[in-house]
């Protein structure tokens, strides 16, 4: 794709190395491909939100467990 853009490729020159263009024209219309991007974005966003949340909980938990260990050692 990058190669093609560099040369301002006309359609004839265009080399579909990855086959993505073939996939695109075979399975999906141009419109649907755009929708696909949004759909993927939505799913990525959902996973990202929960991963960030879990990460924050895990970090808070680790720091509390550190505190507990320190307090217990300090007590003895």
């Amino acid at each position, binding site marked *: 794709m990058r190669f093609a853009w560099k040369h301002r490729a006309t359609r004839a020159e265009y080399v579909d190395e990855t086959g993505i263009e073939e996939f695109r024209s075979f399975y999906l219309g141009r*419109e*649907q491909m*755009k*929708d*696909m991007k*949004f*759909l993927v*974005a*939505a*799913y990525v*966003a*959902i996973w990202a*939100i*929960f991963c960030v*949340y*879990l990460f924050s*909980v895990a970090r*808070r*938990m680790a720091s*509390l*467990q550190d*505190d*507990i260990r320190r*307090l*217990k050692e*300090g*007590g003895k």
Partner: protein
Amino acid sequence: MGSDSQSRTPSGAVISLSSVVVVFLLLAAGSYGALIKAPTEATMGLIQRIFYFHVSSAWTGFIAFFLVFIGSIAYLRTRSLKWDWLSVASAEVGVAFFTVVLVTGPIWAKPVWGIWWTWDARLTSSFLLWVLFVSYLLLRTLVDEPERRAVVAAVFGIFATMDIPLVYFSIWWFRTQHPQPVMGKGGSLDPTMWWVLILCWCATLGVMTLLIRVRYRLEGLRAEVDALRLEASRNAR
């Protein structure tokens, strides 16, 4: 509610492996249903497949906020801090689910309506709800003494959850009286779509339960730290 054996072993597992597996299977099934099995919607096309997790996240978020209500009332009645832990855990998880709703909403709106945001009744109310519970969480960070925090947060939590239906009705009536540039997801759902939606809801409910349990455990640890600190300060004296 966490059992006593859990609070005695701070490093012990909070959730069992099997429950995680079950939830992941549900998620996989839900995603399969949403992305492949469900028929493509006629007018909106592929993008409508966001719908399943978008809507089920909203429903699950409501359940989480309802748990805040239950936890708050139960705390005021019983004065057992465990109910307060349930409230804060549910509030945080509910906010996470509504964040999903608010992020996927615009992603859905953009290709369908051409704009990221519209002051549509449902989006607006979800936004307000999100703000409401973010301020609940903020309030909690601003009170240090655990019992005080629990009481104050419980009263605010009760008021906030009682506000939810009022927010919905007012915005709904308000929006139906005004001309809307874009409206209507409406229409009846295909039965397969219904089943997929229910499946996704089960999956998100499972995720909610796991997250609340983990977050509840975190609150338990915090209480343990507070107790140890108190003990240490007593010994020092």
